[in-house]
């Protein structure tokens, strides 16, 4: 008997769930918001360079840089895009003002009710209004890979060149030192850098740096 009653109680909400909604929007038309409205953020993922200046300027530190796929790998090498915690955001708009690429904007959308707490933390996939499609993304990634490969090849070549001439890296270091000491009396270093350094200075310097980055003990010791 009791079980039957309970089942009846349960069936009632199921029955009315299919009926028409009784809650409606009031006022029936949403207020028209001005163009300058500072509502929810809109990210142009195709432009974002991932500099994190929005995250740095935020007074409540509610912006975090997170990885996201559909951006431009040519501009944003680490593929880091802002994720905004609307639980903390106070819509001051400083992030928008700071953005050097002008890719972060604030739109007219202001409602952000959600069912779960996580819904107020909006990642780039939610705030992005412009992003690359899967196809474009693949093309861009291939392009980025090609450029990276080219660079790596150039690097290798430079490193080889540096290895061939063991004195080159050392000479580059001397050149740099001479260039830094502007007021130093003109000695042996200065004319040497002028004579020999000029054409190959850049490549030699770059080679030395890359060699350092690779932590080659030999060349590192030489510099």
């Amino acid at each position, binding site marked *: 008997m009791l079980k039957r009653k309970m089942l009846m109680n349960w069936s009632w909400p199921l029955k009315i769930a299919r009926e028409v909604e009784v809650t409606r929007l009031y006022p029936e038309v949403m207020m028209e918001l*001005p*163009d*300058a*409205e500072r509502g929810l953020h809109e990210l142009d993922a195709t432009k974002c360079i991932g500099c994190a200046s929005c995250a740095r*300027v935020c007074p409540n530190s509610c912006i975090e840089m997170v990885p996201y796929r559909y951006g431009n790998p040519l501009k944003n090498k680490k593929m880091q895009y802002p994720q905004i915690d609307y639980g903390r955001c106070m*819509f*001051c708009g*400083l992030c928008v003002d700071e953005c050097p690429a002008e890719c972060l904007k604030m739109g007219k959308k202001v409602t952000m009710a959600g069912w779960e707490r996580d819904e107020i933390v909006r990642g780039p996939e939610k705030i992005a209004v412009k992003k690359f499609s899967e196809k474009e993304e693949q093309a861009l990634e291939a392009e980025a890979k090609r450029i990276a490969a080219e660079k790596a090849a150039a690097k290798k070549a430079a490193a080889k060149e540096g290895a061939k001439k063991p004195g080159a890296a050392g000479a580059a270091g001397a050149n740099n030192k001479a260039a830094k000491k502007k007021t130093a009396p003109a000695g042996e270093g200065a004319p040497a850098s002028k004579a020999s350094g000029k054409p190959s200075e850049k490549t030699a310097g770059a080679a030395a740096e890359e060699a350092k980055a690779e932590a080659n003990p030999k060349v590192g010791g030489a510099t």
Partner: protein
Amino acid sequence: MTTASDVLSSIQSAFPGAVLESKVESDRRLWATIDSSKIVDVCKHLTEKLAFDHYSGAAGVDWIARNEMEVVQIMTSHGAHQVVAMLKSKTPREKPTIKSLANLYWNANWYEREIWEMFGINFEGHPGLYPLLLGDDLVGAWPWRKDFKGYPDLTTGKRAVERPTADGYTEYFIPPTPAEIEAGTVPIKLKYPSYREREEAEIKSDAEMIMHMGPQHAMLPGPFLLDILVEGERVHKAFLDLGYIHKGIEKIMENRSWLQGITYTDRMCYVASLTNNECYCGAVEKILGVEVPERAQYIRVILEELSRIQSHLIGTGEFLTLIAGVGYAPWNFMIIDRERIISMIESVTGARLTHTFVRFGGARNDLPEGFADKCRDALKYIESRTKEYIELFNQDPIYHMRMEDVGALSAETAKRVGISGPPLRAAGVAYDMRKEDPILAYPDLDFKVITGTKGDCADRVDVRLREILESVHIIEQCLDRIPSGPIMTETKVPKKIPAGEAYYRVEDPRGEMGMYVISDGGDKPYRVKVRGPFYATLQTLPPLLEGVYIADVVAIAGSMDGCPSEADR
């Protein structure tokens, strides 16, 4: 007219050797470091001989690198001249003590209490150094000193420990660190009579009793405790306690970058956030020496006046709900009218209340297209409505019976107690920062300072309503004259503001708003002191309530148009 250099030479001739350092920034600003033993005499001299009759406030500064503390007294005059004298007196950091000015200026009382509880600077001869803004457990920690580690002190890795009290409650206790015990620097809990004990000591007979109004009272939008000692229907004495929403904004701003500080000025008082922005940005611009482009100046003036209109509308509307027995309550009408002003502001700034609009050297947005026409329409509407309200108030006999000669402040008293804004102007003193310390485009604009005659509640409301009309007049002039051009300075504002200090005043809807900003050349402010208008107004409330009926308490407090959030910043 007296200028800053005249004031300086007068002090130097009267007290040879008392001025240790001095700087005349302009005709209107004098910075002087006074020998701390002579500060009272110098202030007396200024008041008696040079008409410095307005003690505007005091700021404490902790110079930890120089191992000294500084108290900066801000002295001005009620219209006799426009010099602001910033008198500094120094004291060693170990046992900071300075002579109190509370016996000379009545309103120095609260400013010195604030400095005492925040910095631990002792004021000799102060009538009652009791905590005002801080909770009991923070007194003695001196939180605004530069070496304050936070509460609880997280640098030691120890958090507060729970322990049961004798009456069954749980209290949190931070045990002293071993290093502190060894050094003997364990903060000693100061002994002083609590707020309750102090007010109960005033009960003289069995016929008297204490009535609590607040902290959660509909009297003003924000919590503060007003206790009144009543005998029957008469109020004998009133006591005021603040600090229920103390946010420590001045300290927070020391830990935020210069730009981020703007967002905190918004939140001191949300109905006057544009003037607060202006005050902070103006002070920083003064340190930077940046000139604001003319168009940006006009935009800022327009928005600040719009903000004044909406603030006065909500203030008056709220006041009417407080005295609701009058028979009509145009609160709803005022809110509807205010909505039009708010949407005008929103169309420029993008936010309804916390605007974060003013920037160092300009403004965030330009006026949108068609703003002038829309604004003119709105202003026309507001003007006609305000005239209606004034008429409504004038012809209501019950309102007049209720409000006239209630809480009246004479001009002399109002000057002495350091009140500012509409309550002061209602008493007949034409003291307005827009005239006294003209900023932006205000010197070019034609407007009057609205004054009242009697200084009672009815006058205060009347002054506010007539100020709306004057603001409408100012905005109309601005809309006619606004030039085209850039809205930001061409010189790039650096992240690090060069070392310097500035005191900048604006006319808040509630009165004189001043900010004393110090930069040490870093990317954060070294100190931001906010001299808010409502802090001064709240201080005058208890003496004003003495001898009135209980029914008038709410009317008097409400007619001040308060914002405890700003007093408790």
